């Protein structure tokens, strides 16, 4: 499903070049649950953004479902992000003036779905993350864990083939973190492909495969080939 070949990402800062990702080779199959670990500044988020089609590599190739992402126009990438990828962020990134329901609806709006269907699907998604009684709450009326669950509902709403979570438990206490991880495990069992960045070993242990990054290079890939059958 995901195939990174020879991937490089550099930032030019004056006459200095910063090698953030260096010759990355990575293959992730459908329905894998992968954790990416590594020290701060090692390039984990950069790698995630690349996989999420938010960022483009300096060189190398990224095939998503067999198509080269670099060759796609911006509009096409927006469509891919909308339909195939669900993002979960450490800081939740909910729009503060919108209710939980409307936040969850956003991807459907960009997907051109009619209002009635949007409401139905948003309600179902919120039910799935256990927030059916918080539909009309504003983000600042929700706890951190609840906010993250709204964000997960938003990531799920378009039934994406890939869920990307960058430190989803990073801003949560351990109890809420556990709830989120149980939710992810459930999604994994239902067939979702999950990639998750984390600093915590306990969190990483929910995943079947742990990729370790240091200084922009993959130095360890434990559990590779250990694909869970559907």
């Amino acid at each position, binding site marked *: 499903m995901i195939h990174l070949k020879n991937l490089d990402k550099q930032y030019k800062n004056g006459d200095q070049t910063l090698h953030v990702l260096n010759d990355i080779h990575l293959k992730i199959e459908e329905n894998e649950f992968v954790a990416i670990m590594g020290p701060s500044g090692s390039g984990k988020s950069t790698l995630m953004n690349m996989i999420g089609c938010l960022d483009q590599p300096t060189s190398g190739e990224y095939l998503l479902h067999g198509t080269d992402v670099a060759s796609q126009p911006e*509009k096409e990438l927006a469509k891919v992000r909308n339909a195939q990828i669900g993002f979960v962020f450490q800081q939740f990134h909910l*729009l503060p003036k919108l209710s939980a329901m409307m936040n969850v609806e956003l991807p459907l*709006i*960009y997907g051109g779905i009619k209002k009635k269907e949007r409401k139905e699907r948003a309600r179902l998604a919120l039910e799935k993350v256990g927030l059916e009684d918080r539909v009309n709450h504003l983000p600042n009326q929700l706890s951190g864990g609840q906010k993250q669950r709204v964000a997960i509902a938003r990531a799920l709403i378009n039934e994406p083939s890939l869920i990307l979570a960058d430190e989803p438990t990073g801003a949560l206490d351990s109890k809420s973190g556990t709830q989120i991880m149980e939710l992810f495990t459930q999604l994994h069992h239902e067939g979702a492909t999950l990639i998750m960045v984390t600093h915590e070993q306990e969190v990483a242990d929910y995943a079947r495969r742990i990729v370790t990054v240091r200084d922009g290079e993959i130095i360890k890939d434990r559990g590779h080939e250990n694909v869970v059958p559907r």
Partner: protein
Amino acid sequence: MSFLDSVKMALRSLWSHRLRSMLTMLGIIIGVGSVITVVAIGKGGEAVLTSQFAGGGNNTFEVYYMPPDEELMDYDAYDDVAYTTEDLRAIQEMPSVNQVIAYAYNSTNVVYHQEAAGAQILAINENYYDLNEFTASSGRLLDNRDVDNGRRVVTLSTGVVEELFAANDEAVGQIVNIEGVPFEVIGVHERENQSFFAFQVDEVLLPQSSWPMLYGTDNMDMLNVQANSADDIEIASHAVTNYLNDQSTLSGEYQVLNMEEIEQGISQVTNVTTMIIGGVAGISLLVGGIGVMNIMLVSVTERTREIGLRKSLGATRGNILLQFLIESVTLTTIGGLIGIMLGAGVANTVSLIAGWPFLVSIPVVLLGVGFSMFVGIVFGLLPANKAAKLDPIEALRHE
């Protein structure tokens, strides 16, 4: 993403910053409001001026005597101007003429017991009411029977009544003396449709047929002619002046105010003033537009993370561009609509006070709406484009 969804999204976001949205609109409101007001007042004033000069649109024109240049400042030059009964009859019989409205006037005293009041005495017939509408605030107006029978009756204007009598209703039935001739007061008259700026003249109306009793002549001093139709005005005015100049033994010339020229002159003046003030209002609209741009730029910066998030959820550049453009256009359009209502309100108040027609025209309103939308697009483009071009990752990382 449907256009309607974009509009709803924009409205929601404007609504969530109500105070700011309102303040941002202020420049547009004032700009559009003043354009509407100025144009309406200009048009109203023009209509009033035109109707005063050009016979109120009832195809009437005034004939006047123009002495030769060297006698222009000489009062006596006008003394011999007179329209005889034969002149008036001849003019009345011209095919292009509907009716002749002639009157004589003089300034003299009206005496009641020991009191005397200076007034304009107008010798009229019932046609005179076609030049100017009158109402009787007490008693009645002169009518054709008063004229035909040469009755010695008068109506007084309120100003004269106030000078001679203790109360308005005391005047009717009393006898006043004009040039030593007694007249019965049958009513108190008022001129209708007086414009805001017109003087109230102390005047006395009496039947034309009693004029010879006072001054020994039935010649009239003033001549207005009503043509059959607007198209006949030109023909009638030529016929009348030709006739009078042929008859005349005076060294000067009878002329007619050329209404077309006057109307053109008036609209030129009002157009220039409207354009100047409109230009100033346009500048305030420009400043309002810059204000909108400024706030939209602030809003883009404030909402950088929102933009990054929306992009990560699948918003295209076009979606983001449209979102911000709709916000700025909505701001200026609503501002424009409020401005139009405000401007129409002010124009309406002014026209009520000044007593001229209320002239907020549909084209001006549409122009106001169109122009404020245009301002929204022009000044929204820069911020919207800035938002659309944001890099999603950097936007998401924005603190």
